[in-house]
């Protein structure tokens, strides 16, 4: 069965990009455009991995991360932070990895692969 990845990003173009990238590489990608939708989707699909943009309009990624950690059903889902901010690794210390936009495609796939195996 294909592993599920939930992509949370406010930028439609980046969401499309990540969905294609993950689908093309044998994963099943789902999307959410904001934190509220992210929590809803995570509960619904129970993803194996989440990629999270930590700066979205009206939202702050670390808050989402806290909400996720407090939910016993979701708290063990690994999160990869993908952000345009530098120094963001300090914002979500428990993330399995932090990538800065524009990220290296191969590096992201390698981290995803390692995390999911």
């Amino acid at each position, binding site marked *: 069965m294909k592993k599920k990845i939930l992509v949370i990003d406010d*930028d439609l173009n980046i969401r499309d*990009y990540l969905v*294609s990238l993950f689908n093309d590489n044998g994963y099943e990608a789902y999307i959410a455009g904001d934190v509220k939708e992210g929590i809803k989707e995570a509960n619904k699909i129970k993803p194996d991995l989440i990629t999270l943009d930590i700066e*979205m*309009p009206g*939202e702050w990624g670390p808050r989402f991360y806290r909400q996720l950690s407090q939910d016993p059903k979701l708290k063990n889902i690994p999160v990869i932070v993908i952000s*345009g901010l530098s120094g963001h690794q300090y914002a979500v210390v428990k993330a399995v990895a932090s990538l800065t*936009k524009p990220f290296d495609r191969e590096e992201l796939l390698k981290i995803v692969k390692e995390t999911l195996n």
Partner: protein
Amino acid sequence: MAKKIYFIDSDEKHAGALKTYIERQQYDVTCASTFDAARLLLDKNLPDIILVDPFISDEMISCLESVKRENPSVQIIILTQKDKLDAAMDIFGSKVIHYIAMPINSKTLDLALIAASKNISRNRKIDRYSERISELHGTQDLLNQLFEKVPCYISVQDRNFRITAANRKFRQHFGNQVGGHCFDIYKHRDSKCHDCPVAETFQDGESHSTEEIVTSKFGKQYNVLTRTAPIRNEKGEITQVMEMSTNITQIRQLQDHLVSLGLMLGSMSHGVKGMLTALDGGVYQLETGLAKKDDDRVLKASDQIKTMADKIKNMVLEILYYAKSRELQYEKMTVETLADNIVSTVKPKAEKHAVKFDVSIPKDLGEVDVDPKWMEASLVNFLENAVDACVSDREKKDHQITFYVSKNAKNQICFAITDNGIGMDTETKNKMFTLFFTSKGSQGTGLGLFIAHRVIKYHGGTVEVESEQGKGSQFCICIPFQKPDTTQSPEFPIANH
């Protein structure tokens, strides 16, 4: 140096004897026994004292008068026969220092020479004083010029902070305020400033400096760098303090601009990162679409790359608009042309996102003075924001924006832009024209509306906003038909904020 005496007497024997007598008293004596010989001497060089019998020739009298007229410091002692003394006195009066009757009494001659020497010394002293006084006048003029013309504000203040003197630049910008209080003139205050450098200088005699913001008589605010120096009397007591203030407003404005450019770079870099990622995504979709022969993906990718290229182009333009100092280039154009240009720019974006675009442009609104480039860019920005507000709204099914142009009661041209998009909360509404504020996350630079608002302001116009979260927004942008009076409007370039 020995004083020089010309002794003019026709009796050579008598002259010779007298010369020997006078030389003993350390004078340098030269004799002449005829008028011609005397004339030759006087033409060549003038002595300190002339000892002369004026009646040796008719021409001698006028010669002596001319010497005295041209060189008043030459001392003349008349030696003549007793019966001619009165005549000599009638001729020369007080121009001659002494009249001696012949045969000469040596004591009388000694006293006459002493009096002449004293006169010479006194004259020399007077000459020296005059020279010094004229030097002093020169220095005073120079100092006065320096004080008056130095390109900073100089005031001299007493212990009560009352201005006792002020230079020209000070008077130009703060009025002729001698007698007024410094704190009132500079800061429109009722009492002394708590960190007054003048007070500190009165206290410790040292120079102090501060940076202040002062207000000119025209109500303009200046950043000034102020330094003080004590002025002491002959006893060394500080009686007054001089305050020199340099206007550094331009430097501070430049610094502010640099700081905001720095902020902009920070804000930009975040946006640029998002755009580059999306561009990278487009390239990926294009490559994989071609490899998979998936036309839909290729089409979508090419669209995405185009959108990103446009976004990057717009961002660069915004940076250029912000960074470039440029005067508004006013042109007359019909309101219809201006509005049509704007509509044709925004229409494709609205259509792409299936947002209905309702336009009303009456044909008889006449001409307006605008900088077409800035004004079009500004109004397009407002309209594109309206489209973005619709695209971001996921609650409503159908979206529409309207663009109505009309003339208002104040005889201004008004552009009313409405949308039924996401609307704004109070915070967003309050901050929407603030530099680098964006509600669009990585999609915005925080420059667009800031610049758009400034452009309207510099055209002498106004922007009114009404918005309700979840329902939509309404912008009413009004500008005068005629170019505003530049003396009343804020200064361009746009960077001076």
